[in-house]
């Protein structure tokens, strides 16, 4: 389904989505983030500071609650995600490509009921990048594109005073039919302009990982390279790069006790982070990834080697967040290029 929507009608479209909780990028504290809509939506954002992964994989997920009266058996009560369907507007194509990667992680060997319950309730309305929203964008070199529709349900393309709106999935069609009257059929001129805009978007220069196809083998051969320690020398071991990554998915599970009489609380899953020193800390006190070099290697190889070995695609989707946000200049493009080049 391909349609044209005048920009001034976008809010009417959103208003027609009565069965959905609609989220769109909004500026808060000087940063772009997905917020429940509150007034007219803006789609002139760069990219959001946090990717849209939280809609299917929130930082905190309750698995079940528990209660135990002394001397009795503990009583467990499963807690499943519930709530309205979500429509998320303004998702950039790179972040869209993060979605099928997360789907694989949470459905490959086992189906994650919590992730899937949220995932089936989210529709992503993407926005093509007519120009790179960040100086550290590199989607083209990791198999993506500023006009990719992968993982999206609808793709919007900015044509000046109107959007070219394309349904990618059935869920996307549903979103459009909910406000069918607002949309017009695209003319031949619209189609032509779309092609031009997309061609220009793809032609826009970007930073690049030089040999992405060679990366898995070269990284594998570089496991013991002294470069890892060298490149990670400035690393402070914080969690910015992975917490803000659209495809990082590691988690921890803890019991959070809320009261003692009777003992009660919740078992929760929270994001965890391979860059934290205690991530791989063993109960014995031994830490196999003690230094920042080993931890940087884990992050980079997961993105460009391990995931590739498991699923035949790079996990990194080239949004550039980890580069832009790193307080000390660790740059995944530079790291991959340097290690791959050094592997000969």
């Amino acid at each position, binding site marked *: 389904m391909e349609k044209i929507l005048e920009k001034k009608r976008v809010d009417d479209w959103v208003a027609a989505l009565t069965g959905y909780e609609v989220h769109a990028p909004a500026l*808060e*504290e*000087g*940063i772009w983030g997905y917020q429940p809509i509150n007034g007219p939506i803006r789609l002139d954002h*760069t990219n959001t*500071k*946090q990717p849209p992964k939280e809609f299917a994989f929130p*930082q*905190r997920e309750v698995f079940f609650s528990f209660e135990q009266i002394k001397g009795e058996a503990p009583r467990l009560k499963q807690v499943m995600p519930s709530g309205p369907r979500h429509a998320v507007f303004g998702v950039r194509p790179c972040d869209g490509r993060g979605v099928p990667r997360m789907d694989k992680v949470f459905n490959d060997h086992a189906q994650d009921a919590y992730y899937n319950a949220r995932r089936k309730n989210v529709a992503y309305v993407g926005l093509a990048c007519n120009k790179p929203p960040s*100086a*550290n964008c590199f989607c083209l070199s990791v198999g993506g594109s500023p006009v990719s529709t992968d993982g999206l349900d609808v793709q919007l393309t900015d044509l000046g005073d109107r959007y070219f709106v394309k349904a990618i999935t059935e869920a996307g069609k549903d979103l459009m039919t909910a406000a069918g009257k607002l949309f017009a059929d695209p003319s031949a001129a619209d189609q032509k302009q779309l092609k031009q805009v997309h061609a220009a978007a793809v032609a826009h220069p970007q930073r690049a990982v030089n040999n992405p196809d060679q990366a898995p083998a070269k990284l594998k051969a570089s496991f013991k390279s002294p470069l890892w320690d060298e490149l990670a*020398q*400035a690393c*402070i*071991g*914080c*969690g*910015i790069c992975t*917490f*803000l990554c659209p495809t990082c998915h590691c988690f*921890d599970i*803890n019991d*959070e006790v809320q009261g003692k009489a009777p003992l009660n609380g919740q078992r*929760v899953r*929270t994001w*965890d*982070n391979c860059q*934290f*020193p*205690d991530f791989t*800390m063993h*109960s*014995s*006190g031994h830490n196999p990834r*003690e230094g920042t070099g080993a931890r940087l290697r884990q992050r980079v190889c997961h993105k460009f080697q391990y995931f590739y070995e498991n699923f035949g695609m790079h996990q990194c989707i080239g949004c550039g967040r980890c*580069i*832009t*946000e790193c*307080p*000390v*200049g660790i*740059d995944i*493009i*530079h790291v991959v290029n340097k290690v791959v080049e050094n592997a000969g």
Partner: protein
Amino acid sequence: MINLKDIRETARDMLAKGEARAVIGYRRGSRGMLAEPAFLTKPEEADELVWDPTCFHNLSLYLVHDRKHLAHAGKNSGGAPVAIIAKGCDARSIVVLMQEHYFKREDVYIIGVSCEGTGVVDERKLATHLNGVQASNAAFDGDDFVFTTAEGEKRIPAREVMADRCLECRSPYPKEHNLVFGEDKTGRQLEAPFAALDRFEAQGAGERWENWARHFDRCIRCFACRSVCPMCYCDECVVDSITFPVTTETTADEKASRIRWIERSAARSENITYLMTRAMHLAGRCTDCGECDRACPVNVPIRLLNNKMEKEAREQFGFEPGASIGGPSLVASFLDKDPGEFIR
């Protein structure tokens, strides 16, 4: 005016003569104009050094990393000192670390750089100012910063894009040094000390709580503020899942009965406990280098919490963190002039 050539020559000389086993300074990173920490060990690397308005990092953090590496290798000293480029605030951090006996004066060779008429740039303010235009170079020029962009040279009065802490800086000159470049422009502050804090505190209690509650809710617990802070050097931290250094001697009971002060959930109560604990532990130690504030990916104004402690210490005890190596510390000393009759 600081001549970069002089800094480079000093570094080259020291490394060539073996007077320093490493020089920690700034070099141009791989992402645009921004400087990044540099660790030089060979004289020929000295030409990599830069000095420009993006040298915002407090490099004294890496003196802490160095001590940790030495301790891990079972060494007390690395032989020759480490030379480090230090701005006024950074030099005060080094003084606090020595005051706390983290390392000795002779372990460090301080190459001071005066911030003269300006401080360093605030990336967020600059991004707003440049409004999407990418800058490829930054330079000091008197009271201005000069940026090279695709649209030509942009000269911006430093005070418009300077970090808040630089606007309020009382001592931009690194008093503790072995060698110093640049003039002493102490007293050039553009805003009163604690100006940002005073503005915040001028609000009513209800408003202040609303603001902080909102910020505490936004914290994602990436711990960048802790990781980037040279004063957060503890081997064990109250927020980690392992809150004591585990060894092979640690019994299972000890491991099981550790107290979990703060849950991993990034919930308001936990985030408050984390950020307030950190602020308390920085009282009398924080030199307002502003790194926590800069590193925070979600713009929590962490600096205000530390500023509050600094202001209390100043008003109650006339205490200036990082003023002298041999001087009393805030919490480990009692002076006859101290207020608080209760303690006598």
